[in-house]
């Protein structure tokens, strides 16, 4: 398994490397519009990120939003100038220059050559070190050499080689701490790469390593050099931090593969501690707020939503919630004002506001590198749930009133309602003539009788068939294994004049 994983990631990484960055792999969609109704502040947004993720996000924005392409490329070029990735630098400049109406940016040839040379010499140096250590057979040194090479390749955006060396270093790990370190490095890399499908493998490995750590500390002879009684609480806090990171990765992976419910529960249990050193480097707190809340609104039942987010139920006294400790996710909720508003509107059943907010910030969501492919589906899911929730207490309701509550045109709402009925989510029927939605009154007793009758008949019929089948098998009257004889059925059947018969 260990051997096959890097192979798989390699091929994915190589595929996207050609173009420089992975956001190119996205299917081109309708260009995202940024205007007063759909605000997006590029400067404020990108200032929350540093390093490679900032570049990746800028390139994603440039890719999906033509109106922001020029400033995004320009910023990316500036950031890349500080990096060690000359190829990406040149590619980005070329893309920037190919935009119509953009100022021409002259690539800094000297810098490119310098970095190229520097990269080459660093690489040679590290590889020589690795060779030396390998011949000396010092495990720990070999591990560190692999790790350093992995870091180096990651810095120069050679993801496949970075992954190769990180995974290689695992063979030379002597303690679980080292394995954990390796897993976290790989996870950072995978998150950067948006390689969601592989994340869970390394989370699994990391958790196993994490579990093994206390066991080693308990043993006196192990690598527990610093484990003393007083440090135990600190260790467990450390442990919690790592666990939070793993939880984040797992939630992100679930989001990546469209498992929104798992993503929602994952994000909502994240605490603030532990992720600090990933903020900016991989993700911003406001991102987590948006991911978590969107997934939660789309999948979790309302009661779970209220308790997870530590909100007071509308109507209940405000004092009671203050006494209990706020859940961990509350921190993220405060990071982004509109997310908070979204949750409040949803919990208070102001669905019109919910939909308006979702629409207003749709650009913000689509421009997010992780959320982008899921925005459409999540929005639809939230809207559908809202419609279902809204109708629940009614026996019948006029469609135009409902449309008013959602701020949607009546005919569009009717279509949605019909689709939801057909999907079995709303138990009701539409009075298309008077434009009324009526709940179905289901007689449970009759339904039960009908079901019992149906099941009984089905069982009798299938038992008859099974019995006959047993008899046939007991008598060995089975269609035989192929022989030279024809397998086309008997001549008897060819003569059956079905067509004339079955007009």
């Amino acid at each position, binding site marked *: 398994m260990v051997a096959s994983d890097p192979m798989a990631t390699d091929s994915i990484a190589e595929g996207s490397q050609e173009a420089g960055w992975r956001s190119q792999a996205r299917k081109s969609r309708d260009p995202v519009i940024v205007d007063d109704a759909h605000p997006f502040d590029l400067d404020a947004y990108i200032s929350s990120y540093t390093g490679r993720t900032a570049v990746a996000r800028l390139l994603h924005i440039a890719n999906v939003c033509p109106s922001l392409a020029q400033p995004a490329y320009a910023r990316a070029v500036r950031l890349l100038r500080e990096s060690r990735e000359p190829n990406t630098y040149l590619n980005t400049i070329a893309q920037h220059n190919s935009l119509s109406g953009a100022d021409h940016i002259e690539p800094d040839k000297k810098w490119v050559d310098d970095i190229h040379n520097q990269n080459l010499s660093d690489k040679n140096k590290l590889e020589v070190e690795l060779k030396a250590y390998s011949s000396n057979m010092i495990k720990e040194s070999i591990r560190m050499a692999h790790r350093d090479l992995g870091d180096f390749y990651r810095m120069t955006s050679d993801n496949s080689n970075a992954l190769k060396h990180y995974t290689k270093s695992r063979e030379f790990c002597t303690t679980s701490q080292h394995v954990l370190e390796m897993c976290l490095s790989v996870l950072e890399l995978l998150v950067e790469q948006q390689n969601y499908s592989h994340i869970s493998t390394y989370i699994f490995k990391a958790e196993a390593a994490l579990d093994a750590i206390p066991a080693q500390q308990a043993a006196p002879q192990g690598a527990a050099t610093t484990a003393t009684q007083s440090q135990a609480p600190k260790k467990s806090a450390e442990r919690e931090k790592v666990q939070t990171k793993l939880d984040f990765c797992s939630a992100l992976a679930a989001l990546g593969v469209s498992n929104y419910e798992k993503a929602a529960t994952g994000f909502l249990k994240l605490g603030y501690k532990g992720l600090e050193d990933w903020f900016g480097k991989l993700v911003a707190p406001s991102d987590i707020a948006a991911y978590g809340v969107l997934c939660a609104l789309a999948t979790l039942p309302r009661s779970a939503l209220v308790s997870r987010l530590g909100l007071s139920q509308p109507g209940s006294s405000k004092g009671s919630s203050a006494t209990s400790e706020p859940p961990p996710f509350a921190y993220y909720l405060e990071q982004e004002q509109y997310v908070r508003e979204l949750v409040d509107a949803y919990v208070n059943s102001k669905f019109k506001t919910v939909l308006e907010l979702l629409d207003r910030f749709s650009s913000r969501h689509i421009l997010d590198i992780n959320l982008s492919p899921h925005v459409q589906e999540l929005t639809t899911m939230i809207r559908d749930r809202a419609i279902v929730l809204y109708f629940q207490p009614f026996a019948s309701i006029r469609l135009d009133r409902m449309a008013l509550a959602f701020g949607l045109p009546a005919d569009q709402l009717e279509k949605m309602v*019909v689709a939801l*009925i*057909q999907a079995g989510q709303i138990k009701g*029927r*539409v*009075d*298309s*003539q*008077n434009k*009324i939605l*009526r709940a179905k009154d289901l*007689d449970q007793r*009759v339904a039960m*009788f*009908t079901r*019992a*009758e149906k099941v*009984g008949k089905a*069982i*009798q*019929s*299938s*038992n*008859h*068939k*099974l*019995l*006959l*089948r*047993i*008899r*046939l*098998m*007991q*008598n*060995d*009257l*089975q*269609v*035989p*294994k*192929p022989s030279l004889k024809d*397998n*086309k*059925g*008997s001549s*008897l*059947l060819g*003569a*059956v*004049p*079905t*067509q*004339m*018969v*079955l*007009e």
Partner: protein
Amino acid sequence: MSLNSLDDVISLATGAQGSNSTHVANAFKALVRKDKDGADIMLSGASGSGQDPLAILAPNIHTLPYLYILSARLATNATTVTHAVVENFCRTADPIQLRLAPDRVTLLAHGISRAADQAGSIRTAIGPLRDLVRRFPATPAHLTSVHPIFVHACVKSHYFTLALPVLQQAITEIDKNTYDLTYHTSLNYHYSAGICLAALKRFREAEEFLEIVVSSPSQGPPTAVQLDALNKLALIQLIIYGKTNPTPKYTHATLGRIFKVSPYSAFTKVYPAPTSALVGIVEKDLKTFSSDNNLGLVKQALQRAPRWAVRKLTETYVTLALPEIGKAVGIESEAEVRTMVLSMIEAGEINATLSAEGTVTFLDPPTSFTKEGIDALLEDAQTHAMLLVEFDRELERSRDFLQKAVRDREGGGPWMMEDMDMTGHSSLREAIWDEGDF
């Protein structure tokens, strides 16, 4: 005593040993085993005295010799046999003696069918064959080699209703040796029966029969009959349910794979789309449908497509105007929609009212559960449960089962459980438990 001429046959039949059927049967078997063709020629010839042996023998007493001679004549030179003789034999022959020579009964049945076909009226074969089907098996639940021949004759002559009394008797007993059965017998019988019932528009029963064909046990690749049955089954399910149901778990996997790439699968997938889309698919693969002789079923499914679309609407709407229905099901003319909706209401397919302005109001389907109806259902279930218990006991008494059970007790290993699953034993236990849960 060996049989060398027809005179020997007659003296055997009329002699002292003549009443010992087993003895006679063995003598004939020995004769046929020695030289089948020669025996048939000898049997279909004339006796030394020039007298017709069939005139000497009585069909109800000397059934076996009569059967051998008659079947031999039909096989070699059918014109010498008059219809009255055949009819008389089939009506009066002794069933116990017939069961001693099942292969000759098969031969006879084939002979009857062929002779009638050659004479140009397959219809005449139905009478004798029906007598044979009724009299040959010990119980009506037994399958015999005559069954497929009889039903096929009915289908071929379009006298479908004549087959009904036989078809309504479910086959549950299979005895390979007494009734000369091969795997073709079961496949052909159920296939022909399915077609027969489909022609009578008794689609639900047809579905059962075709499903048996489709899910017949198989060691090798599936047969063409099974594939054809699956195609017809899919079309029939479209007609009665508006969609296809999954085939039983134990259906040959290859069948499903072949079906998936056939035009039938394409047709079922879009069904019940607006008729225009369906017609497109049908026209594209018209050749396949017509060469498979399924055009009739396809047409019926096509006709019913808008009805299924309307049925779907009833689950979603309370009231709907006729033009809206027309739009949803793909019929433009309002008058046509009105006729269709009316006919559906009349047939009880939907429970609705149609107002003068053209608004259809769908009502909840009426539910009719009477005490008597439920009692009948329960009684049905109980009889069925008894049947299963009896079967279960029989299985536990059976040699195979006991052998395996003993071996298992001696430490035979866990494979036995798998084996039990294969015979369907454990699933039957579950079925009984289900029934008891009512």
